C-alpha cells in the first residue's frame, strides 16, 4: 500500500493534522496574530476538508485493522466536518474578539482529529485514543471563557466526570480483553460468548458511551457544561461530539456485540424511555436558553436511541439521517443564541420576549429550529423523528414508541414556550435590532435550507440508507 493510499484513507486526519501543525508554526513564528486571517484560513480549511471527503470512496483498513474506512464512516466524518464548519462560521464573530483565537482553533482541530479516529476505529485501543482525544481538549474548550466562573465550573465538572467515565470504560475494556484476548472489533465479536462476565463488561463499555451521548442517568454534567461553556463550544458539544459518539456507539454495538443484541436492546429501550422523559421534565422548567437546549438535546438523544435499538439497516440510516437533521436544527438554534449572546450577553428565555418585533430573521430561524427539534412539519425534524419511530415500529418496539409519542407532546410544550416568548409576548425593552455578520448569516441560510429541504428530498435518506448496515 502506497503512502498515497494511506493519505487517501486518512485524508481527514492528515488534513486536520496539517492544519494543526500549520497553526502551531504560525503561533511560533508570528509576533502579532491577525485573527481575521486565521479565521478566514480555518474557514477555508474546513471547506477544503469537506470537499476532500467527496473525492473517491476509499474502503479498507490500515494499521492492522486499527483504522477502518468505508462509505458510512466517510459520511459520518463529513457530517462531523460539516457541523464543525457551521459552528466555526457561527463562532467567527465571537472569536474575532478573543485574544486566544488560535488556541481555540488548535483545540478544536485536536478534538476533530480525535473524532475522526473515533469513528474510524476498528480496535478498542484506537477507539480509546480517539475518545480521549475528543474529550480532553473539549474540556479545555469548555473552560475557554477564562473570565467567567461558570465556564470554569462547567469545565471542571466535565473533566472530572469524563475521567471517571473513561476509567469505567477502560475497566470494561480490560475485562473484554481478558475474556476475548483481543482488542480488535472483529476478533472480539468472534470470541464473544455472552458469558456473565462478558455481559458485565458490556455494561461498563456501554456506560462510557452513555456518558458521551448524555443518556440519563449519565447526563448530569451535560446541562452544567452547556450552560457554562461559550456558545460555540456548547453547540459543538451538543452536535458534533454527540453525533460522533453516536456513530461509533452504533458501530460498536452492531459490529462488536451482535451476540448480546437482546441484552443491549432491552437496556437501550429502558434508557431511551428514561432519557426522553427526564430530559423533557427538566427542559420544561429551564429559563436559560442554553441549559434549555442542553436538556432538549438530552431528549433528542432519547429519541435517537429508539433508532439504535431498532437494529436494522433502515434504523441505522434513520439515526444518521436524524443526526444530520438534528445538526441543522440545533446549530440553527445555537447560532441564534450565539448571535444574541455575543452582542449583549442575554441568554435567558425571558430576554427573547418580543424578539420578532426587532429581529424577525432571528426569530424565524429560532422558530424553525425548535419546530424541527419538536418534529413539526414541514421541517425536516418531522421526517427524522418519524423515521426513527417507524424504524422502532418495524422492530416492534411499540411500548417505547408510545412513550416517545407522549414525550413529544411535552417537548412541544416547551418548544412552543420559546416560540411564544419571541412571537407573542410583549416586552418593554426587547433586544434591539442586531446586524448579523455575514458568516453567521451564511450559517442561518444553510440551516434554513437544510431544515426545509432535507426532509422533502428523499435522495438524502436514500443515500444514507445505501451506506448503512444493521443487524
Amino acid at each position, binding site marked *: 500500500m502506497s503512502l498515497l493510499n494511506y493519505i487517501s484513507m486518512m485524508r481527514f486526519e492528515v488534513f486536520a493534522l496539517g492544519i494543526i501543525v500549520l497553526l502551531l508554526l504560525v503561533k511560533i513564528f508570528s509576533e502579532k496574530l491577525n485573527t481575521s486571517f486565521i479565521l478566514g484560513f480555518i474557514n477555508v480549511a474546513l471547506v477544503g476538508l469537506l470537499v476532500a471527503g467527496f473525492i473517491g470512496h476509499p474502503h479498507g483498513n490500515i494499521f492492522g485493522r486499527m483504522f477502518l474506512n468505508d462509505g458510512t464512516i466517510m459520511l459520518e466524518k463529513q457530517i462531523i466536518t460539516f457541523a464543525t464548519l457551521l459552528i466555526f462560521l457561527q463562532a467567527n464573530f465571537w472569536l474575532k474578539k478573543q485574544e486566544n483565537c488560535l488556541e481555540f482553533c488548535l483545540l478544536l482541530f485536536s478534538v476533530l482529529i480525535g473524532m475522526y479516529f473515533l469513528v474510524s476505529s476498528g480496535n478498542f*485501543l484506537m477507539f*480509546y485514543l480517539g475518545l*480521549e482525544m475528543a474529550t480532553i481538549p473539549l474540556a479545555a474548550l469548555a473552560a475557554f471563557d477564562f473570565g467567567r466562573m461558570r465556564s470554569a465550573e462547567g469545565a471542571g465538572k466535565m*473533566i*472530572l466526570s469524563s475521567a471517571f467515565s*473513561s476509567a469505567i470504560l477502560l475497566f470494561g475494556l*480490560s*475485562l473484554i480483553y481478558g475474556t476475548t484476548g483481543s482488542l480488535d472489533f472483529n476478533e472480539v465479536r468472534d470470541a464473544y460468548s455472552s458469558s456473565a462476565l462478558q455481559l458485565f463488561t458490556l455494561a461498563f463499555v456501554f456506560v462510557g458511551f452513555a456518558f458521551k451521548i448524555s443518556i440519563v442517568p449519565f447526563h448530569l454534567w451535560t446541562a*452544567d457544561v452547556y450552560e457554562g461553556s461559550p456558545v460555540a463550544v456548547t453547540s459543538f458539544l451538543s452536535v458534533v461530539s454527540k453525533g460522533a459518539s453516536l456513530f461509533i456507539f452504533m458501530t460498536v454495538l452492531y459490529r462488536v456485540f451482535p451476540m448480546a443484541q437482546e441484552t443491549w436492546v432491552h437496556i437501550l429501550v429502558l434508557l431511551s424511555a428514561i432519557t426522553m422523559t427526564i430530559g423533557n421534565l427538566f427542559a420544561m422548567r429551564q429559563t436559560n436558553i442554553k441549559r434549555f437546549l442542553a436538556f432538549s438535546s438530552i431528549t433528542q438523544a432519547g429519541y435517537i436511541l429508539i433508532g439504535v435499538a431498532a437494529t436494522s439497516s433502515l434504523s441505522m440510516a434513520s439515526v444518521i439521517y436524524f443526526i444530520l437533521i438534528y445538526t441543522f436544527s440545533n446549530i440553527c438554534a445555537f447560532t441564534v443564541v450565539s448571535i444574541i449572546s455575543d452582542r449583549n450577553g442575554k441568554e435567558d428565555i425571558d430576554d427573547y420576549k418580543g424578539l420578532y418585533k426587532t429581529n424577525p430573521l432571528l426569530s424565524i430561524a429560532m422558530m424553525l429550529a425548535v419546530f424541527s427539534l419538536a418534529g413539526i412539519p414541514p421541517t425536516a425534524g418531522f421526517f427524522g423523528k418519524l423515521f426513527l419511530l417507524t424504524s422502532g415500529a418495524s422492530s416492534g418496539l411499540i411500548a417505547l414508541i408510545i412513550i416517545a409519542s407522549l414525550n413529544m407532546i411535552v417537548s412541544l410544550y416547551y418548544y412552543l414556550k420559546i416560540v411564544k416568548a419571541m412571537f407573542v409576548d410583549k416586552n418593554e425593552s426587547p433586544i434591539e435590532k442586531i446586524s448579523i455578520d455575514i458568516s453567521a448569516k451564511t450559517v442561518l441560510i444553510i440551516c434554513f435550507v437544510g431544515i426545509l429541504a432535507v426532509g422533502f428530498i428523499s435522495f438524502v435518506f436514500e443515500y444514507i440508507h445505501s451506506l448503512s448496515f444493521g443487524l
Partner: protein
Amino acid sequence: MSEIPMTYVLFVSFALFFIGAYGFLTRRNMITMLMAVELMLNAVNINFVAFNKYLFPEKGDGVFFTIFIITIAAAEAAVAIAIIINIYRKFKSIDSEDADTLKW
C-alpha cells in the same frame, strides 16, 4: 518458582478500582478526586498487564494499551489540573461542593 495465580493479581486490581471509585465518590477535594481516578486507571493497567501476561502472552496488546493509558492519564491530569486551578481562581476553593452555581 511458582507463579502467583492471576486471581491474586485481579483481586488487587479490582480492589484498587473500587477503592478509587469510593475515593472519587467520597472526597471533596478536586485534586484528591483526580488522584482517585488515577487509582482506577492504574487498576485497569494492572488488569491489562495481567491478562496479557497470564492469558495471551503471544501478543502485546495489553501492555501497549497500558502505555497509552498512562500517557493519556497524564494528559488528562494536566488539563484537569489546569481547569482546577482556574476554578480555584474563581471560587477560591477546590472543594467540589463549593463549585455548584450551575444546577437545576
